[in-house]
């Protein structure tokens, strides 16, 4: 059965004086308007939020109530920073199972209600608390910094190449009013910023953001019945890896990305990933993450990710524009929202509704790549017209 996306929504990302319900409402409202349906048309809602920082410990029902979906689900989903993608898959599955004709995936995160040390601790506890955070004070930037140290030592990836990811994504975010940081930065400013977790500096790291995303999915039959246009889900891949970083087999890439992309490429019949997509939304929570993703997704050979960004191959006009709306780095990374903000971007691009950030369409296909933790979860979706 084919499943299509008929509506997408995304809130403004940033430090928002809104509750988790109000943030979700912004994205849901836009997605319903976009689909041209009302809340009564939704059969089931899936609420994705990791919500390890919020005061509302079980927020799915409060969110569902506020959005007028009481009685329709909700299914609460959590997959760390890949929560939005897991919610999207759950909504897809509810349709494929025949239980729903129209499903909404909501992804939302409220991250700025606690201070930065608390946020760092929550992120660091998300690997394996007892064996890592408890003893060693691991943090989320720290885990990616460990991968950066290995990548730089083995392949000679430079701090400047890392910073080029940030410069590119900020340049794109500058044209996206929904971005947390809609402003350009210089390479000099990025490389001279202070260390957060060596070798990663402040401008190698995504901000701590509030935000929400939503997507409305429907069966092909329902889409025909409603007379709607849709963007189709052509490929899905998922994987995961160990919780303990010490139980990994290496630190220069993410196995979850490699495995999830292989699954998605097989389902969608993709043979040459570099030549198959007009746009890609990659998980760039830290600059090294985007560089590893180029390699792990097969856009370039292992170790050549630094050169890939340096040569402009992931920029507008390059082989494959990556993170055209600013990426997690500059658009922001509200954990639960991120996967659905990627779907939002991919859908807008494939419909040619991306305005100043529109890419040229040749293949009419887009890829989203969403990682939870440091490859603790991996999701890849391929969308097409």
């Amino acid at each position: 059965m084919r499943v299509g996306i008929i509506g997408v929504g995304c809130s403004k990302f940033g430090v928002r004086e809104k509750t988790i319900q109000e943030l979700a409402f912004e994205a849901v409202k836009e997605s319903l308007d976009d689909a041209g349906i009302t809340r009564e048309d939704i059969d089931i809602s899936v609420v994705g939020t990791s919500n390890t920082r919020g005061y509302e410990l079980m927020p799915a029902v409060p969110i569902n109530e506020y959005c007028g979906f009481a009685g329709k689900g909700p299914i609460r989903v959590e997959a760390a920073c890949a929560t939005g993608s897991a919610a999207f898959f759950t909504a897809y599955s509810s349709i494929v199972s025949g239980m729903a004709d129209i499903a909404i995936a909501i992804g939302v995160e409220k991250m700025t209600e606690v201070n930065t040390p608390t946020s760092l601790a929550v992120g660091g506890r998300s690997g394996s608390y007892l064996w890592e955070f408890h003893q060693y004070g691991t943090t989320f930037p720290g885990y990616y910094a460990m991968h950066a140290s290995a990548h730089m030592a083995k392949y000679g990836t430079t701090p400047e190449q890392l910073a080029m990811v940030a410069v590119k994504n900020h340049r794109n975010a500058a044209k996206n009013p929904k971005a947390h940081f809609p402003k350009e930065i210089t390479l000099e400013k990025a490389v001279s910023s202070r260390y957060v977790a060596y070798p990663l500096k402040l401008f190698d790291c995504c901000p701590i953001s509030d935000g929400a995303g939503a997507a409305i999915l429907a069966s092909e039959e329902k889409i025909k019945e409603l007379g709607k246009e849709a963007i189709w889900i052509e490929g899905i891949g998922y994987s995961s890896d160990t919780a303990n970083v010490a139980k990994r087999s290496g630190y220069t890439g993410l196995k979850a990305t490699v495995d999830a992309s292989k699954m998605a490429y097989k389902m969608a019949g993709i043979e040459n990933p570099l030549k198959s997509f007009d746009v890609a939304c990659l998980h760039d929570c830290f600059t090294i993450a985007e560089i590893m993703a180029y390699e792990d997704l097969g856009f370039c050979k292992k170790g050549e990710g630094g050169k890939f960004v340096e040569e402009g191959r992931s920029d507008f006009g390059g082989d494959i524009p990556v993170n055209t709306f600013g990426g997690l780095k500059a658009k922001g990374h509200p954990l639960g929202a991120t996967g659905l903000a990627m779907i939002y971007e991919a859908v807008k691009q494939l419909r040619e509704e991306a305005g100043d950030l529109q890419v040229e369409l040749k293949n009419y296909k887009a890829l989203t790549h969403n990682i939870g933790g440091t490859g603790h979860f991996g999701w890849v979706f391929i969308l097409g017209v």
Partner: protein
Amino acid sequence: MFIEGRELTFKHNIPVTSVEKYWKGLEEGKIYGTTCKNCGAKFSPPQADCSVCYSSDMEWVEIGGEGEVECLTEQHSFPAGFEFLKEPYTIAVARFGDFRVIGWAREKISVGDKVVAETDKDETGVWKVYFKKA
């Protein structure tokens, strides 16, 4: 406008009975992993059950000798719970044969360096692994 929420503190009692030897070992300067007697799978950090063959017949193995640093970071931002640290701290993963071990380093180390592992406790009384150059 904001309203300050009511405070809630979690202090967890974490059961470590099945891996007590590891925690006691740290106090004696020893680092232990486990090996599955049935299929040979190796675990560091140790576990009482085998995730590969589902046997619970495990053997304690001391991890020692020279290791090689595979990745590291120097943390400049302190998470809640580590305010007692006054200086940036280095976290590394080093490979000792079949086992990888995570630890702190008190001296400057680089990826590829050969290290040995020691144990000590920090200012909060938590025992852990420390690497130093071999």
